């Protein structure tokens, strides 16, 4: 028979008188043994409350545990303690603070399986029970923390989205402004090109007019003087050697039919019919000493053979053929 069993039987009054006296004398002189019996008595209270004793043991335990006011208080204390420990999960669900009222039927259920249920089905709750009294506050704190975190995250996402929208709008605005500026620059460029071309044309006309007004002066530009020709390919056409540096040259056409028409036109084409240049705005006054002069850009001409047709406008408005000219360009 082990010590544990002896102590339990001693407490329940099941020991014979001689064995009982041995136990009593031992706990009086041995404080450790005395404390062991006290612990066993507490365990017996647990078993009594949790109803793990058989009927006879329960009756004996009741006699012992309800014999004095102190014993009753001790039982109530343990009942309260078990209720606090086991009831904490229920209290949390009901959101009430930990009270001291103990439901004895709950304790009965606990003995038959609720405690195991709590452990098997509510494993995480077990951890909460370890700290059962501050748990409600802890859960409130966790919920508040979770709420704050969620709110903060939503605010962060919202502000970030707002920020991205602002950046996108700014980028679109900047892009539109850039496109507008580009359009303006393009228009300016086109205007400048037109102005430049106009100035070039004016300069060309001025140079042409100057050249025609001073036919006897030594030409400052390379000059090609052409006489009317009868076309024989590779015959006597003048060869014009255009230097790469020659951006303009003067062309002088001999005109024998002077002043018979009120307006003249000149058309330069290649021999295969591709028109290079033309003008129908020559006035009779521009024919000086039997020469119609014009300044042409060198860039118009490539390595090729060219022919020029001179026409004069009749009174009926139609231009009629006057003469042909031919020349070659060999760059």
């Amino acid at each position, binding site marked *: 028979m082990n*010590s*544990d069993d002896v102590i339990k039987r*001693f*407490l329940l009054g099941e020991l014979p008188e001689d064995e009982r*006296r041995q136990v*009593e*004398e031992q*706990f*009086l*002189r041995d*404080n450790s043994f*005395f*404390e*062991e*019996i*006290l*612990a*066993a008595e*507490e*365990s017996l209270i*647990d078993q009594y409350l*949790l109803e*793990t004793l058989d009927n006879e043991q329960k009756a004996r335990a009741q*006699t*012992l545990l*309800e*014999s*004095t*006011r*102190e*014993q*009753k*208080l001790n039982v*109530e*204390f*343990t009942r*309260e*303690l*078990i209720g*606090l*420990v*086991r009831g904490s999960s229920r209290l949390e669900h009901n959101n009430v*603070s*930990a*009270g*001291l*009222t103990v439901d004895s039927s709950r304790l009965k259920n*606990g*003995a038959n399986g609720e*405690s*195991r249920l*709590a*452990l098997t089905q509510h494993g995480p709750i*077990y951890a909460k*029970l*370890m*700290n*059962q*009294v*501050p748990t409600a506050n802890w859960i409130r704190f966790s919920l508040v923390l979770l709420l704050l975190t969620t709110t903060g995250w939503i605010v962060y996402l919202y502000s970030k989205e707002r920020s991205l929208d602002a950046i996108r709008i700014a980028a679109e605005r900047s892009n539109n402004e850039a496109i507008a500026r580009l359009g303006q620059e393009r228009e300016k460029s086109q205007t400048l090109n037109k102005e430049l071309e106009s100035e070039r044309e004016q300069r060309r006309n001025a140079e042409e007019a100057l050249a025609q007004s001073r036919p006897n002066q030594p030409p400052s530009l390379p000059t090609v003087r052409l006489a009317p020709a009868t076309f024989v390919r590779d015959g006597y056409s003048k060869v014009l050697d255009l230097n790469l540096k020659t951006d303009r040259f003067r062309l002088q056409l001999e005109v024998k039919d002077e002043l018979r028409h009120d307006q003249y036109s000149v058309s330069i084409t290649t021999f295969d019919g591709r028109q290079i240049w033309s003008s129908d705005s020559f006035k009779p006054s521009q024919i000086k000493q039997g020469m119609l002069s014009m300044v042409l850009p060198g860039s118009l001409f490539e390595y090729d053979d060219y022919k020029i047709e001179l026409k004069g406008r009749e009174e009926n408005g139609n231009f009629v053929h006057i003469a042909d000219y031919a020349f070659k360009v060999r760059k």
Partner: protein
Amino acid sequence: MKSSLEQNSFDELFSLLEPQGLSTESRFTLCRRKLVKFFVWRHCTDPDSLADETIVRLLKNVDQGTKISGDNPYSYVYAIAIHVFQEHTRLKSKTTSLTDVAELPQVSISAAVDGCGALCLKELAPEKRELLARYYLDSDDRNDTADEQFATINALRLRIYRIKQELKRCRQKCEKRSELRN
């Protein structure tokens, strides 16, 4: 107040009964507690009075010159306690108890302590609270709990008992504070 002779007898008696290192008051308290439990476990209805009666007789005998010596000084105390118990039993059989224990008023701890139990549990060291919860939540597997604690089941019960004692002391203080406030 005890006379100097009585005081000397008192000190000498409890220095014999209880281990060195404790104050005389602690020795007396411990001895009295064991006697109270002696009568409790014999299902006496008023164990405190019987324990006090035992101590009074013990001190009287020592004061009258009875020498307590030997390896087991408690054997003399035990003899007196048994005698007091037998007197009590005889007296109880002849008289009707004025107070039926079964009719003692139920003490509503809930009302009395007003949250002291929960408060004291909260103030308990976390590892003790954890052990307590494990002990009561896993009541069918206390051997496993003991194994996890590297202890025998008796050692585990002892730890639980000490934790509960700590809680009781805390609650008593708490209740006193509550009473003072009220």
